[in-house]
């Protein structure tokens, strides 16, 4: 079976942090390719550099050296404005701690990326409704995050990540703050959405069973280095 075209290509990517005199290399010459529509799990223990690698691929951070190519654009060479547009138009993000704005209702949180993308108001309402419907939170749209359970908050965050119809969804420990039942439900939902929309999903996790259950491929990181990038399933 012919493989899908490479969608994301990390080429010898390194990320260093300077702490006084010492230099800490969080990601060390990682090369990795991700195909379109793939569900990749970046697996590793705490401090392995998986979240740093994800941040760079999501356009939140820049590599100290190397290149990250997404649809033939090298993210390391984009200026701040272009990188912001990449995050706005190509990427959706889900975080471990949900990161919904507490003073906004659920639908206002989900609407936020559409405001930033300057989508007109008439379209916004239908797209917000559609995204909330997809994650099963239609009836909770007027609730504030504090009025939702952890699982509901993460589903809300997922709706917010999907509302801009991104090509890539990045999930940084999406089950980290959830119990195992809710964690599985979220990943199940994520997988369903990925299947139905054909999105590329890159998820950071330290839970091997979940990664093995839901991801197409597992890339293992340790001390900033890529130990294995696994076989596609």
């Amino acid at each position, binding site marked *: 079976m012919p493989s899908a075209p490479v969608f994301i290509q990390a080429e010898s990517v390194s990320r260093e942090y300077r702490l006084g005199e010492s230099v800490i290399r969080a990601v060390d010459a990682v090369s990795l390719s991700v195909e379109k529509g793939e569900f990749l799990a970046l697996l590793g223990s705490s401090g392995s550099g998986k979240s740093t690698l994800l941040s760079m691929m999501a356009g*939140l*951070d820049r590599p100290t050296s190397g290149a990250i190519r997404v649809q033939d654009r090298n993210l390391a060479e984009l200026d*701040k404005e272009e990188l*912001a547009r990449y*995050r706005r138009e190509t*990427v959706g993000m889900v975080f471990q701690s949900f990161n919904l704005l507490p003073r906004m209702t659920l639908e206002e949180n989900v609407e*936020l990326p559409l*405001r930033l*993308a300057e989508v007109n108001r008439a379209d916004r309402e239908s797209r917000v409704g559609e995204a909330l419907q997809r994650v099963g939170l239609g009836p909770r749209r007027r609730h504030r995050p504090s009025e939702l359970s952890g699982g509901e908050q993460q589903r809300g965050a997922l709706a917010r990540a999907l509302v*801009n119809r991104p090509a890539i969804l990045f999930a940084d420990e999406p089950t980290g703050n959830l119990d195992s039942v809710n964690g599985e439900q979220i990943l199940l939902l994520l997988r369903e959405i990925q299947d139905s929309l054909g999105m590329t999903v890159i998820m950071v996790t330290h839970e091997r069973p979940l990664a093995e259950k839901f991801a197409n491929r597992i890339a293992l990181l340790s001390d900033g280095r890529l130990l294995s990038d696994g076989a596609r399933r």
Partner: protein
Amino acid sequence: MKTRDLSELAVRNLREAVLRNSLTTLGVAVGVASLVAMLSLGVGLQTLASQRLSRSGLFDAVFVTSQRNFRGPRQPPPPDAAPKRESRPLDDDARIQFSKLPNVTEVYPQIRFVTDVRYAGKSESTSVLGLPDSSRSSGAFDGMKGAFFSSPTADEAILQIDFAKLLSDQPPSLIGKELTLRYAERGALSKAADDDEALLDSMMGSGKPGGISIIPREKTLRVVGVIESDPSAGIGGFGGARVYLPLKTAEQLHVAQPDDLQAFLSGNSAKPSYMAMTVRVRSPKDVLQVEEAIKQLGFATFSLLDATKSLRLVFTVFDLFLGLFGSLALTVASLGIINTLVMAILERRREIGILKALGATDRDVRSLFFAEAGAMGLFGGFFGVALGWLIGSALTWGTTIYLHRQNLPGVKISYIPWWLALGGIAFAIIVSLVAGLYPASRAARLNPVDALRYE
């Protein structure tokens, strides 16, 4: 992000920390209020002074005298006096000439004479002055007991209170009563008298025919008002009169004037002339040009133009100082804005990170903080102007009560023109935006990864 979305988010953010943001906005409002109140006081006092001075006729008037008028025995001619032109009498021909000059609105002679006033068997000697009808609006008669003359030709009189006290223990009771003036009328000589005069002239060898006759007359006038201050000080510039008549009534009396004697001696007694005339111009800026034109006609002039300039300078400096004091409060308020927004950045670090992760640009974040600062400035400016107006009104109210207790008419000492209201709001917004510059750029520079990590 679109402006409407930006504004909505800014207002929402302000509403969230409502107490702190309200206090900061109140700080701006107090700053603007102090600035507006100070400047409104300056503007109000300046307007009041300008109106009073303008109504008094001192600053839009040129006082004209004939160059042949007497100087005091020890007074030499002024050192910068213009070369002596042909000396002209200040008569009705001159009056017509003055009235035809551009920007001249009114010309009237100064009719002043000494007379005997009789009332209820009492006889008092005093000075009488004719008042033009325009002095009705000079402000000098505000608070007068009774009323101004019913018409420019009415046989009516207004008495100065000190003089009225000589006639009655209850001066206001004189209103409506009649009194009699005894005065000397200047008349033309009869034909026979003129011939005798000519004969006398030829015998004396003066060679200057002409003459005047002085006839004692009486005139009955009804008292219509009693005034405490001296209204003539601001009108003729000389003051001192104690009985006032309508100017036209005074002119019709043809009272002999001191100039008549001079005219007689110089052989120009055929027409009556006046001691002085007042030429009113459209605005103080026209004074110089009219004054020059009158000098060219051969008359001496006097105006208070320089005093007006000095007055404006004083008020400009006064406004400047008031503005500086007012601005100090606004400077303190702007520090409050900086403090509030810097604190907001610390508290909202994570939110900034989320916004950036969702695709907000540095400019979006900067604009959001800027909009919040601007909104505080707008609301602060609006409430500040309202508060400044209240303070000004309270000052006017307090001053009016005080003046009323002193039996004086109330005045509006605080005035907020439209430019001050709009300027106050605009200034508050500008100061707030400047205060928001640093916090906004600091927020925009936040690294999204660091911001998201912030707990």
